[in-house]
C-alpha cells in the first residue's frame, strides 16, 4: 500500500487518525473503473478504511453505511498528476517561497524535493478541488542537469500526505541539461556516464578522493538505488535523436527503470519506445516547434504513442507549480485529437500509477485506494468540475484560498463595513 513507504513516528500517529474514517458508499454512479470492468452504470461503491471494499451494479453496502447519491454522475479514480511542482513553490517569482531549484547548491541527486514540500501551500488546495488527488513532484534543474529526487504525495493538505519522499531521480538530457553540463549534449552524456560510474563505485572510489568524476560523495550515495534499477529515473528530452540515446542507455543497462518527460518528438520513435518498454509523460498541448528539439511537435503525438503501445501519461508542463490541474484540459484536448476516452482517462490515472509503481492507485476496484471524484459532467469536458473529492476514503474540502477570495468579492457592497470584514 501507499502508506507503508513512510516510516516515521509522525506518520504512524496520523495513520491512526485516518483509520477513523467512516465507512461510506457512493450509490447510483457512472463509474470509470480503470480496469477491465470498463465503465459501470448505476453502480455502487463501498468505501471502508480508506479502501474500496465493494463495487458493482448489484452490490449492496452494509446496512448503516452513510450513502452518497451520485445521481447518475460520473465517478472516476482521483486524478494523478505525474509531473508537477505542486507544493514546493508558493509564488514563482519570489525566491523565498520557491523551493523548486537550487542553482547555488553543490549537490544534485542528493537534493530531495520532499524537503521543500509544504502540504499547506495554497496550490495544493487549488489542485485538489479540480479533482487531482495524487501528485508526482519533481525538482527543477538549478546548477546541475541532475535536478535531484522527486516525491509522491496526495493533495489532502495533511501532514502525512507524502507517500514516497524519494520516488524518482529527475534528469534533464535535453537542451537545458546540455547547457548545465557545460554547453553540449556530449557534455551532458559524459556527465551522466560519470555519475553512473560514481554511484556504482560508491563508496570505494571515494576512499582516496573526496570528489567523483561527476558527483559529490553525497550525490553518489543518493544515486545508488537509481543506477541499480531500484528507483525510477525520469529523463526530460524531446528530440527524436535524444530519445534514441535514452533507449540506448536502457539497452546497455537493462535493469534501469526509466521514463521520459516531454517527448514532443516521441511519435517519430514510438515503435522503438514501445519495444524498449519506456513510458512517456507528455503534454498534449505541445504542437509548436518551441525549440530545435521540438520541431516535430504535433497534437497527434498522444494518439500515435498510444497506438504504438507506449505507456503514455499526460501532464501540463507549463506553470506546473500552480496549474497541475490543467492535466484534465490536456486530456480533453488529447481526446479531441484522436485519443479514445478510456486512454485519455488512463493517461492521468492508471498509467501514472504504473510508472511510479503505486499499487492500488488509479483504479476503482476492490482493494484500491479510495481516491475518488464525483463529477458534475463528463470528466474530460472543459466545463465539468468535481462535486466531491475523496482521498484515502475521506471527503475533502472543496474550498481554496481562491474560492474564499471569490466569495468575498462576489458582492461589492461596502455600505456597512469594508470587505475585509467579510469572511
Amino acid at each position, binding site marked *: 500500500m501507499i502508506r507503508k513507504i513512510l516510516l516515521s513516528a509522525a506518520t504512524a500517529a496520523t495513520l491512526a487518525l485516518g483509520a477513523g474514517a467512516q465507512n461510506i458508499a457512493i450509490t447510483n454512479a457512472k463509474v470509470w473503473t480503470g480496469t477491465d470492468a470498463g465503465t459501470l452504470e448505476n453502480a455502487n461503491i463501498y468505501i471502508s478504511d480508506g479502501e474500496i471494499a465493494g463495487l458493482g451494479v448489484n452490490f449492496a453496502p452494509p446496512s448503516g453505511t452513510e450513502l452518497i447519491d451520485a445521481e447518475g454522475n460520473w465517478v472516476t479514480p482521483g486524478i494523478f498528476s505525474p509531473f508537477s511542482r505542486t507544493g514546493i513553490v*508558493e*509564488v*514563482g*517569482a*519570489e525566491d523565498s517561497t520557491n523551493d523548486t531549484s537550487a542553482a547555488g547548491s553543490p549537490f544534485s541527486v542528493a537534493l530531495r524535493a520532499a524537503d521543500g514540500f509544504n502540504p499547506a501551500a*495554497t*496550490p495544493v488546495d*487549488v489542485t485538489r478541488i479540480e479533482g487531482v488527488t495524487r501528485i508526482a513532484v519533481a525538482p527543477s534543474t538549478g546548477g546541475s542537469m541532475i535536478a535531484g529526487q522527486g516525491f509522491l504525495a496526495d493533495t489532502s493538505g495533511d501532514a502525512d500526505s507524502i507517500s514516497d519522499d524519494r520516488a524518482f531521480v529527475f534528469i534533464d538530457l535535453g537542451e537545458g541539461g546540455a547547457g548545465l553540463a557545460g554547453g553540449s549534449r556530449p557534455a551532458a552524456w559524459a556527465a551522466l556516464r560519470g555519475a553512473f560510474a560514481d554511484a556504482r563505485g560508491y563508496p570505494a572510489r571515494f576512499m582516496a578522493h573526496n570528489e567523483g568524476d561527476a558527483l559529490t560523495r553525497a550525490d553518489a550515495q543518493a544515486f545508488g538505488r537509481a543506477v541499480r534499477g531500484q528507483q525510477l529515473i525520469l529523463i526530460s528530452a524531446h528530440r*527524436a535523436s535524444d530519445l534514441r540515446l535514452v533507449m540506448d542507455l536502457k539497452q546497455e543497462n537493462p535493469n534501469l527503470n526509466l521514463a521520459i518527460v516531454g517527448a514532443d*518528438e516521441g511519435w*517519430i520513435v514510438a515503435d522503438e519506445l514501445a519495444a524498449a518498454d519506456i513510458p512517456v509523460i507528455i503534454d498534449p*498541448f*505541445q*504542437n*509548436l*516547434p*518551441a*525549440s*530545435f528539439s*521540438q*520541431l*516535430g*511537435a*504535433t*497534437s*497527434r503525438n498522444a494518439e500515435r504513442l498510444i497506438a504504438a503501445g507506449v505507456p503514455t501519461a499526460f501532464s501540463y508542463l*507549463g*506553470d506546473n*507549480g*500552480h*496549474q497541475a490541474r*490543467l492535466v484534465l*484540459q490536456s486530456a*480533453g*484536448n488529447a*481526446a*479531441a485529437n484522436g485519443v479514445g476516452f478510456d486512454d485519455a482517462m488512463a493517461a492521468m490515472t492508471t498509467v501514472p500509477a504504473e510508472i511510479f509503481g503505486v499499487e492500488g492507485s488509479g483504479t476503482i476496484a476492490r482493494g484500491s485506494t479510495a481516491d475518488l471524484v464525483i463529477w458534475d459532467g463528463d470528466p*474530460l*469536458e*472543459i*466545463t*465539468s*468540475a468535481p462535486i466531491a473529492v475523496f482521498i484515502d476514503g475521506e471527503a475533502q474540502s472543496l474550498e481554496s484560498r*481562491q*474560492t474564499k*477570495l*471569490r466569495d468575498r*468579492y*462576489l458582492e*461589492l457592497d461596502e455600505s456597512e463595513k469594508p470587505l475585509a470584514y467579510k469572511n
Partner: protein
Amino acid sequence: MMKKLFFVLGSAALALAGCGGGGGGETTDNGDKYEIDRNPFPSTYSPYPSTSTLLKDATVLDGIGGQIEGGDVLLVDGKISQIAEEIDAPDGATVINARGKWVTPGIIDNHSHLGVYPSPSVSAHGDGNEISAPVTAEVWAEHGIWPQDPGFPRALAGGVTSMQILPGSANLFGGRGVTLKNVPARTVQGMKFPDAPYTLKMACGENPKRVYGYGGGRFPGGAPYSRMGNVAGYRMAWAKAVEYKRKWDKFADEGGDPPARDLELDTLMGVLNGEILVHMHCYRADEMAQIMDLSEEFGYKVTSFHHAVESYKIADKLADYGACSAMWADWWGFKMEAYDGVRENIPMVHQAGACAIVHSDSDIGIQRLNQEAAKALSDGRRAGIEISNADAWQWLSANPAKSLGVFDQTGSLEAGKDADVVLWSGDPFSVYSQAEKVFVDGALMYDRGNPALTPVMDFELGQPGEGDLK
C-alpha cells in the same frame, strides 16, 4: 458605462480617419506643406479571393448576444451579407451543410506576442521587448514581427482571425502594438489590419521595477525601483508629451518652424490626440485604480487593462471608467501580483457591466481561447453568475474588437462587416469541438479536412513534421 468606451474608440477611429496616411497638413511660413507621416509602414493586406459561401442550418452565435438555432449565414464578396433562419443560396455560392455545427465570429486575441517572440524561441528571436530603457514609446512591435512564425497558422486553426501583437511588459512604455489579420504573408505589412488604430503598450507593477530597479545585477539598477518610481516615470513622460503636443498644436495654428521630431513623444502625443489606444499590463486592483486617476490627470483613456488578475475586486470601478479587462481564465501565482487570481474573474467583470475579454499572451493559449472562455463561463455559473453562451462570446470577438478600435469592421456577425467567421464542429464551449473551417474576409484560410489548406511556414519546410497535422 460601456458608452464611455465606445465614445473613446469612436473618436479614435475618427481621428485616425482624419489623418489617414498623410499627416495633419501643417504648413510652414513659406507655404510649403509639412507633414508628419503617421502611417509610414502602410498595410498592403487585401482579402484573398473568395466565393460566396452559405453556411446552412447551424447554431449561430452572432457575437453580440444573439443565438439562432438552425440559422444560415451568407458570406458575399468578403463581407457578412445576411444572417437569417432561412437564406436561399445565390447562384454560384458554395453551400456548406452546417447542421449540428456552430458558426461564430472569428476569435480576436488582443494580447499576443506571435511574431515578436516566435517559435522556435531561440535567443535570436527575442524581438518582443526593447528593454534598453523604461520608456521606449518610440519602438513599434511590427518592426519585430517575423511573419514566418509557425504560431500564426496554429492560432488560425484555433479560430483566431485577428490579433493584436504587443511589445512585452518590461518597460513603463513598451512601444506601439499592431493589429493583424491572421493570414500568411511574406511581409508584416501584408498582415496589417487595414485602418486599425495604433496602440500603446504600457506596464504596471513588478516587471518594470524588476527589470530596471533590480536589473543587471546592479543595485540599484536605476529607475524605476518601486511602484512609486513607476508612477513617477509615467507622469514625467506624459508631462513631456503634453509640452510636445502644445508645440505641435501651436505650429498647426500659427505656422513657423516645425518642432523637432521626437519619435517617443510622437507616440505619446498620438495618445493625447485620441489616435492611439492605450493597452496597459496591470494585475493589481489598487494599481488599476491609480492608473485610472493618472489617465485623467493627463487627459487620455486606458482602453484595456491586460492580465487584470484582480479586476474582480474593482469591477464596478472599471465599469464606471469604461476600460476593458483582458484576462486569462485561470493563470495565477507565478508572481506576487498574480497571487490573488480566481477562476471567476472574467464572469465577475462581465456581471458588473464592465467589458470582459479573454486573451492569451501565449502561443499555446491562443489556440484554444474558446476553451478558456468555457472554463470561465462554467466556473461563473457554479458561483451563481448566469451568463448565456451567446453573451459570453462577446469576450472572444466583439469586446476585443472594440478594444482595438476595429469593431466597425469585425467582431460580430452583422451584415456589412468583414466575413471573419469560424465553423465549429460542435458547441465551441466543449473541449471536443474544433474549428473546422476558418474564413478571413470571406476567404477560406483553414480547413481541418483539407491538409492543402493548412499553411506550412518557411521555417517548417524540410524539417521533421513538415505538413503534418498540428
